[in-house]
């Protein structure tokens, strides 16, 4: 035995598709279930195209591709409907995350399950963007004045909007991290240096996409979904390289996050590191432990490691005094 059934099983299959030849039925079952849990089943399917595998595994992966394809369709339609609502405003609208990858046909978009639509617009134009979306059939998800005020003052996005007919959410950002978080990316530069798509919408330039992915890997939560996030980064670096990345990351105050993200991607997926970048550092091991905390039944494992990261992520998002006040107010209102 001695084969670890944790995220490394999945990482190895993505990194080296031929390695699945040594898997037995139980090994395949664990790999497929884990991939599904990490939202990497369709990416795995593409990586394993043409590799010999049991018929049942092929079916599972074909189903994953079919699922992903339909999700992609729906996500691209949301992009199109956002374009129709916002296209005439004369405002730069920058697509973010999965929607950007699939709209631009990037490698990171292949096999990518996309959720809500995330866009980035200049802060000064938020009111006009908000009005245009409301006029085109979107409405607020949570009409709660405290949450609303909190959101508008401190968060990096408008309160969530959902389309009343299509039932899909759109998140309108004006920067890529909460205003209460410690690194403060240069939102103006993100937009100024964005790249236009044929349909008039925009995406971040490649280095900024990597910075964004890295920022969210560490700032966003307890790193669940991290393997997928790092796979995005791996695909982006594979596509575009990392020339100028260090400097760009420094500009956004994200140098540490980007370096760590690339080290972790290198450890999992053998992502090429730029010359002179350290291969590994201090607590990378702890991060990797957290990232690969998934078993062959699709369960999250290593509860103590996970808890540590959850506490840490809230610390990153909000200064302590604010966090206390926020939680106290929520408790008083009986929310949560």
């Amino acid at each position, binding site marked *: 035995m001695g084969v670890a059934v944790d995220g490394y099983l999945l990482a190895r299959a993505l990194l080296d598709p031929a390695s699945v030849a040594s898997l037995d039925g139980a090994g395949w079952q664990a790999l497929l279930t884990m991939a599904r849990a990490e939202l990497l089943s369709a990416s795995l399917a593409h990586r394993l195209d043409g590799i010999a595998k049991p018929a049942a595994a092929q079916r599972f992966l074909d189903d994953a591709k079919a699922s992903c394809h339909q999700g992609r369709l729906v996500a*691209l*339609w949301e992009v199109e*409907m956002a374009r129709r609502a916002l296209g005439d405003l004369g405002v730069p609208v920058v697509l973010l995350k999965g929607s950007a990858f699939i709209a631009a046909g990037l490698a990171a978009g292949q096999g990518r399950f996309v959720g809500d639509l995330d866009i980035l617009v200049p802060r000064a134009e938020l009111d006009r963007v908000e009005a245009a979306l409301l006029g085109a059939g979107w409405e607020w998800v949570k009409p709660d004045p405290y949450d609303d005020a909190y959101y508008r003052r401190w968060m990096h996005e408008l309160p969530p909007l959902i389309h009343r007919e299509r039932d899909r959410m759109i998140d309108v950002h004006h920067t890529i991290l909460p205003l209460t978080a410690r690194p403060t990316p240069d939102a103006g530069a993100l937009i100024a240096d964005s790249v236009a798509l044929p349909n008039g919408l925009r995406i971040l330039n490649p280095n900024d996409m990597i910075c964004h992915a890295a920022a969210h890997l560490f700032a966003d939560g307890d790193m669940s979904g991290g393997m997928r996030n790092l796979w995005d980064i791996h695909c982006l670096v594979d596509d575009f390289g990392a020339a100028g990345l260090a400097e760009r990351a420094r500009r956004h105050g994200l140098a540490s996050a980007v370096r760590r993200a690339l080290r972790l991607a290198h450890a999992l997926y053998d992502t090429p590191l730029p010359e002179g970048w350290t291969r590994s550092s201090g607590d990378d091991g702890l991060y990797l432990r957290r990232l690969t905390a998934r078993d062959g039944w699709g369960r999250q494992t290593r509860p103590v490691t996970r808890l540590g990261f959850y506490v840490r992520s809230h610390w990153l998002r909000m200064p302590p005094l604010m966090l206390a006040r926020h939680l106290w107010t929520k408790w008083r209102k009986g929310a949560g």
Partner: protein
Amino acid sequence: MATIYRAASPDSLIVVPVDLLTAIYHRASGQTHLMASPAPEILETLADAPLDAEALLAKLRADYDLLDADPAALIARLDELVETGLVERR
């Protein structure tokens, strides 16, 4: 300048008549619509070229023999089609 209406291209639609109604699958959105006249006829007419409401009404009268074609009703139908994404306002 009157609003021009443009329909989804015929390639992006699968149109299947189902007794008195028409089932339409819109490939770009993944949505299925079940429509009654004159919606399918509007889509067919606009498929040739984008038109404004007045020109569309004239063409519908000519091509489909619509006797009581009411301009206000047409605008209402077009608004519904815009909401579904099958028609775009320019």
